[in-house]
């Protein structure tokens, strides 16, 4: 899977929760949009969509703070 494909899939998932016009390096959670269900759904989405296991030690803010961070994290785990 290419980086762009991962990026597109992640973007369309995020669009269900936040306004889509976020830049790839914009802080997703700076606006306080951190709720447990969203975080949980994001992790479950990543696990299912890309068939990877997100361990407790992976649940680091830095892995999820921007779209680029999420994509980088997924690429590292695939």
């Amino acid at each position: 899977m290419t980086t762009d494909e991962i990026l597109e899939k992640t973007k369309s998932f995020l669009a269900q929760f936040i306004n889509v016009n976020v830049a790839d390096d914009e802080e997703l959670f700076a606006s306080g949009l951190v709720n447990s269900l969203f975080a949980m759904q994001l992790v479950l989405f990543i696990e299912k969509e890309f068939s990877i296991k997100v361990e407790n030690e992976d649940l680091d803010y830095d892995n999820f703070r921007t779209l680029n961070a999420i994509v980088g994290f997924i690429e590292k785990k695939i």
Partner: protein
Amino acid sequence: MTTESSPQKSEQKVKCVVWDLDNTLWDGVLLESDQVSLRDGVTDIIKTLDKRGILQSTASKNEYDHAMTQLKAFGLSEYFIYPQINWNSKAQNIETIARKINIGIDTFAFIDDQPFEREEVNFSQPDVLCIDAADIDKLLDMPEMNPRFITDDSSKRRLMYISDIERDNIEENFVGPKENFLATLNMVLTIAPAQEDDLKRAEELTVRTHQLNTTGDTYSYEELDHFRQSDQHILLVASLNDKYGTYGKIGLTLIECNEDVWTIKLLLMSCRVMSRGVGSVMINHLRNEARKNNVRLQAEFISNDRNRMMYMTYKFAHFKEKEKINDRVILENDLSQVQKFPEYLTVNIF
């Protein structure tokens, strides 16, 4: 210091009673005659359970409209949330109700006159308490049906779930991102130090809440009353309102205050407010307070099979694992990272 006690572990309290209809709630079989009559004392039992904050639903093999019309005629339809009147297995229907209410199946009781139905439920859901309809005269005296405290929130519980159903329907049909939907609710979160009359509800929350609970430690009324007055502790209660009404008191936080470090011993939220962002707002408030008081902020977490979401809430709010003592993880917050409160909700702090 924390003393752990679990007064109710041995005797699981029932949170939802699921009634069969034919020959259980009423005498007779609806499909065979239109002349069914309520069983003696049933109305009183239903109303009493409702006042105790025990939710009720029905799993009945009948035609939906027909049975609902009959329940309305008896003035009882409003007492049943997510009624499952269909031809599916009752075990499956009870699972559906549990999923929709979002409480554990082990907090359910099921009343039916037919041994077949009770056994079928028991077979796939051994944690459901199955009760023979012949024994309902003893129902109200069963210890499982007697919560330790009955609070304002318990007697309003059904109405609060009905507002939830209304909200969920609107949410399901809302087009656009979730954040925009949340903004339409006009939510107001109030965070205040626990008062004496909050304590019963606070104890109830520690006993009832498993999913959105960081440690699972339960505290008695007396312990909570001590923390409330202690200089070394802060005990906060959160309540939430929105345009559909009140969710009641839905959150509890216990902080132990030492000279240079505050430790969140317990952070819990009722699962009714899942996805409202309340836990994160509470943490954000504590981070602000810690900065103001010039102390470090730590939190304890004990993992169970249901509370991974709270671990994520901590991790996404800039907590990092520091050490592990047996199964208790100690996390420490990076207070240099500043987060705003979300714009979709108003926060009142007392």
